[in-house]
């Protein structure tokens, strides 16, 4: 394998692993902040125990997010130095702004929050988790703005043989960027809601800590329900934006080969990349793709054959990942909708609880699939239309990248297993005893 492919794989491993932890940080920090706010408002000790129980899981997850995040900042320089040199003026500054405005805030206050339960006033302590939540979400906004610029570069000018910043405002306000931001954050909130529901379901199935986990379940449910519905609506608009701005990606997502007016949506198909066609197509709905993408049944949708073969993304992977993501997105609406109907009768519906327990991994799968659509679907470009991935790689030896790729797989594999084992251990152990029964300390 050449240095480009190895570097792509290494970056894929690093980002996918990082994003196993990031979404829960984004959503759970908010949920914990809500729990602790309720405690401050009502003085009900149960909410404090809620914040502490979910907080323990949160902290392990947070630690993994932090250490895997450093990798990414290093990798732009170590593995993608030509890219860094070419776009550093814009991309580098967004990264630096992310660090100055967000990373300091979240790392300082996560330590304050974890270590000062007995020292700060409840209000100030609660404020510290709100700051962590705000900083994490702000950091996501900055890094997604940077990613959006790679998807659809704006506000730049090519000068001195590189992309230089011309309009900062255009970069931070571009509508496509905010589509990506909303889409990703919403996904993270769904994941967090499902995580809380799943862990709560585990205990409700055993009928232990019933009041505690019923409250947790309902909070997760409301959160996940709102965002699952929002994601479907927003996802549709997001798709329409992709159709306008990244037509080759859309064609790959839908495995559409021929440019045509009134393009159909096919319920089931198997793409055959080599022969530029689909092997099986079942359930064609004429005009539906045109309608979804351009809000016009007769609109022309560009097919893959419209692009030279070297400018097409990998079709099968993009297509499958898109279907998985969309399918799961609808499933989340169904599951949370059902949950809303059953919200007062959770204990007498063990089947639903069991489904929700085993549903924990599904949003993880959906989010990773979403990133495959975004990143694989952008190929062969690293910056859409501006720089190709193969021109972005560092002048380093394939052996260097190969060795570190193996090291990442081993180290991340090990740490991932440990982290999820610990989170599962804390989740199963349940909350600490209520202060009335025990001293409240540890």
């Amino acid at each position: 394998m050449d240095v480009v492919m190895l570097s792509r794989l290494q970056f894929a491993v690093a980002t996918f692993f990082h994003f196993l932890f990031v979404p829960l940080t984004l959503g759970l920090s908010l949920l914990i902040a809500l729990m602790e706010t309720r405690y401050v408002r009502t003085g009900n000790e149960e909410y404090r125990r809620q914040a502490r129980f979910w907080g323990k899981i949160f902290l392990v997850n947070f630690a993994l997010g932090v250490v895997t995040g450093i990798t990414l900042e290093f990798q732009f320089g170590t593995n993608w130095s030509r890219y860094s040199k070419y776009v550093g003026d814009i991309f580098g500054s967004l990264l630096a702004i992310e660090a100055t405005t967000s990373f300091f805030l979240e790392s300082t206050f996560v330590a304050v929050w974890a270590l000062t339960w007995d020292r700060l006033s409840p209000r100030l302590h609660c404020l510290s988790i709100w700051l962590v939540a705000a900083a994490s979400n702000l950091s996501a906004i900055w890094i997604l703005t940077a990613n959006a610029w790679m998807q659809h570069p704006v506000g730049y000018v090519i000068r001195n043989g590189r992309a230089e910043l011309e309009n900062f405002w255009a970069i931070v306000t571009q509508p496509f960027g905010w589509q990506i931001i909303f889409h990703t954050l919403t996904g993270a909130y769904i994941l967090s809601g499902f995580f809380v529901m799943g862990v709560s379901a585990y205990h409700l199935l055993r009928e232990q800590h019933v009041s505690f986990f019923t409250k947790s379940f309902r909070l997760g449910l409301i959160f996940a329900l709102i965002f699952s519905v929002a994601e479907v609506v927003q996802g549709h608009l997001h798709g329409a934006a992709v159709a306008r701005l990244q037509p080759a990606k859309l064609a790959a997502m839908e495995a559409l080969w021929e440019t045509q007016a009134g393009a159909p949506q096919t319920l089931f198909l198997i793409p055959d990349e080599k022969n530029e066609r689909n092997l099986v197509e079942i359930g064609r709905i004429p005009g539906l793709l045109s309608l979804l993408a351009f809000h016009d049944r007769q609109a022309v949708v560009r097919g893959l054959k419209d692009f030279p073969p070297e400018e097409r993304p990998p079709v099968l992977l993009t297509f499958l990942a898109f279907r998985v993501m969309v399918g799961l997105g609808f499933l989340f609406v169904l599951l949370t909708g059902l949950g809303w109907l059953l919200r007062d009768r959770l204990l007498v519906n063990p089947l639903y609880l069991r489904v929700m327990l085993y549903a924990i991994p599904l949003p993880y799968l959906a989010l990773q699939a979403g990133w495959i659509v975004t990143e694989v679907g952008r190929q062969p470009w690293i910056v859409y239309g501006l720089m190709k991935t193969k021109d972005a790689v560092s002048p380093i030896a394939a052996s260097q990248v190969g060795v570190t790729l193996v090291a990442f797989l081993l180290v991340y594999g090990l740490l991932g297993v440990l982290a999820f084992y610990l989170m599962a251990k804390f989740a199963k152990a349940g909350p600490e005893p209520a202060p009335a029964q025990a001293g409240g300390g540890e």
Partner: protein
Amino acid sequence: MLLTIWFLLWGILWSVYFLLDGFDLGLGILLPGLGRTEEDRRLIYRVTEPHWDGNEVWLIAAGGVTFAAFPTAYAALFSGLYTPLMLILFALIFRGVTFAFRDQSEDPRWRRLWDTCLFWGSLLPALLFGVAFANLFRGLPYDAEGHFQGTLLTLLNPYGLAGGLLFVLLFCLHGALWLAVKTDGEMHRRAAATARSLWPWLLVLAVIFLLASRRVTRLWDNYFTYPLLLLLPLATVGALVLTCLWMRREAWWRAWFASAGTIAGVTLFGVVGLYPHLIPSSLDPAYSLTVYNAASSPFTLKIMLGVALTFVPLVIAYQTWAHLLFREKVSAAAPEKKLY
């Protein structure tokens, strides 16, 4: 002017990173030596736990600023020093998860495993950052394309290794002083004794390093051109001497600040000596990356300056507040109250 400001800010950010993370890296290296019992080791973890992550973000910021202000230098440096940077990265990963994983089991073997991770995870970055910066001061084999023409062994020359050792000693002293500030009793005595015994070695190595810099690097050129700048190395040596004086008087907080000043002074001595170079090429001075050929556009530098001047003072303010929050000493007698 803008370029000079950013060059200085770049140097200052790295100095701040070293003077902050220096103490927790140093304590990681001293852990096996100072932490004889589990109780001792817990004390060492307790004095670093609230701060290590906040300190490490200064590395992210320093790296981010290198990327944002001098992308050409960032690209050349990070790809050229691929292997040492990957070693640092893996070290920091193991080090970071240690704080989350170590106390999750009572099993002594489990804890010893993570203590080992903390030791290596602290030693490698301290050593390799020293090696990397000394080599930066000395010049690196970059060609006309900005491609690195050396290997890991290129970096392991005597001057580079001296730089690595200097950083390790500086950080160990810094860590020992921090522990002396934060503890009482037996642990305090042990930390103080360690700090005192490290100091003479550090003095010898610092003198050797400064003299070797005269032979091996061109760092002193700027200082002889603008003699006023000589105040900087003088102040650095002064800080090192003050560290000793304050240690003798048992003024531990002051000694720690003097040690912080020494670390910042050593870093800034090199950075000011480098100016206007970011990476001097040892192959041909014409291939060197400087603030003139490696910087971002003036517009980007201006925006970044606005961001830095707004947010860095804020960061300093709330990190100082957090330090005040955790200002009391830790002792085995006072129980821990932590969440994980």
